[in-house]
């Protein structure tokens, strides 16, 4: 699965999942609050609850195919697991958990280090599931409107909006150019591959400049005056769902507070 292909698949999910039509504000509120609580939790308990909840929501309610979701999780999880394994081995102080006896020296693994590794692993997994929840259920179109409401600088939003749209145009152009090069044996050896890729990149760059020019003209023809205005007609958040999320967050805070001394 290539990177571009993956982007397109995630994008398709965001527009077609079963929660696509529900209020984006609610989804953003849920994902962000759960993410913050998950990352700031001192014990792995809260992140585990968050992970299970978001995963259930994604699979049961948003109807994201389980194999797609798990394929998205696999690679980050492997990387995080390796990092956390290293944290567990190298970090920590105080009470030793075990000692690894090597021929030339003894390696001390501390209990606090292992706890740190495990906690970090679940924190990241919890946060990851929150971000996937946001990305897989909320379309970019909706996210831009939310960002605008949050008073993120306009220039950033407008740039990402154009980048988002033309990313897909240029992915297609690049794929076509690549095929055209391949058909004329442009990728038949290592050297030719380097050369063809350089040509493709250069060409693509010029194409983006030209596209920018043409888009600007087309926007002018519809009365562009330097501001891209958005039609803000998102569905209103339902009170019940907001209350539910607040309730969920309060429980998480309560769990955090009650486990703070145990862990």
């Amino acid at each position, binding site marked *: 699965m290539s990177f571009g292909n993956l982007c397109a698949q995630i994008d398709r999910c965001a527009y077609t999942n079963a929660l696509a039509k529900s209020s984006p504000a609610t989804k953003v509120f849920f994902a962000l609050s759960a993410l913050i609580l998950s990352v700031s939790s001192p014990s792995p308990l809260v992140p585990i609850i968050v992970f299970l909840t978001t995963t259930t929501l994604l699979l049961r309610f948003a109807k994201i195919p389980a194999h797609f979701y798990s394929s998205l999780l696999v690679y980050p999880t492997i990387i995080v697991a390796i990092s956390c394994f290293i944290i567990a081995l190298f970090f920590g102080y105080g009470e030793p958990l075990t000692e690894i006896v090597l021929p030339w020296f003894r390696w001390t693994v501390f209990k606090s280090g292992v706890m740190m590794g495990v906690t970090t692993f679940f924190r990241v997994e919890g946060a990851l599931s929150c971000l996937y929840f946001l990305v897989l259920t909320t379309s970019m179109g909706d996210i831009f409107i939310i960002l605008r409401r949050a008073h993120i600088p306009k220039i950033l939003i407008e740039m990402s909006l154009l980048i988002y749209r033309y990313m897909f145009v240029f992915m297609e152009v690049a794929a076509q150019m690549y095929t055209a090069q391949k058909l004329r044996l442009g990728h038949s050896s290592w050297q030719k591959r380097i050369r063809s890729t350089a040509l493709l990149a250069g060409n693509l760059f010029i194409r983006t400049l030209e596209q920018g020019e*043409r888009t600007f003209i087309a926007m002018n*023809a519809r*009365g562009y005056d330097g501001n891209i205005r958005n039609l803000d007609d998102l569905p209103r958040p339902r009170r019940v769902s907001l209350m539910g999320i607040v309730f969920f967050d309060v429980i998480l805070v309560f769990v955090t507070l009650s486990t703070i001394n145990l862990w």
Partner: protein
Amino acid sequence: MVIRMLFRLENVSYRYSDGTLALDGISLSLAKGERMILLGTNGSGKTTLLLHLNGILKPTSGKVYFEDKPLEYTSKSLLDLRRRVGFVFQDPNDQLFAPTVKQDVAFGPLNLGQPIDKVKKSVNEALKIVGMSEYADKPPHFLSLGQKKRVALAGVLAMRPEVLVMDEPTSNLDPRAASKILHLLLQLNQEFGLTLILATHDVDMVPLFATKLHIMSKGKIVLEGSPEEIFSNTELIRSIDLRSPRITHLFEILRRKNHLLINKRLPLTIGEARREILELINFGDIIKLKRTTKEGNYA
């Protein structure tokens, strides 16, 4: 009585910054409610000419009049002009920049400073006219080229223009999508009185569509008139690398090589050709032909 012209171009020339003279002394005029086609080969200056009609390009020399007033190139009068003269580009990817269809169609009305409710209404209506309502929340990269073209058209219609300028409305479309767009344009012209200005090199669509035809070659208008007048001048058409509609061509060959007797002008459309053929072989003969076929001895 003086007919008030909607558009009038007086001796318009345009030179690109690299020195190419794209338009060379163009003069033309157009009345309200007409369906005008600019026919010309690639690189004959059609697109450049169209870009003058809503003030995107300013003539190097000459003047463009809209409703008898010369165009002013101030941002305020340009905004007004661009509301009234909608422009649909050849490549819908140039035009569709917003993340969803709805957002894109709303771009123009929002720029006009309309209140949200009115914008929503215009967007829904425009999408309904082009038959893309169910795609309102989809991003443009989910759509086929024909669908993108219809959305681009909706983006302009939502501004409720009086004139619609369209560059190559049928290019790269399959026959079905092309005829869909053409029917839509005809309907807009007949129901809402929208004046249409199209650039194309698709000769066969001209007689079905145009009330007025201008033929461009090398930055100049070489012929103008109704399709009937223009396509009777076969030699000139061919000399500027264009051709007559296929059906006209067929009749021309029949007349020249098989000495078929056609005294009137040659038919331009399938409908006209059918009438002509039926007249030529008159009805009695057809019935006789049918009967002999049944008996199996028509050889």
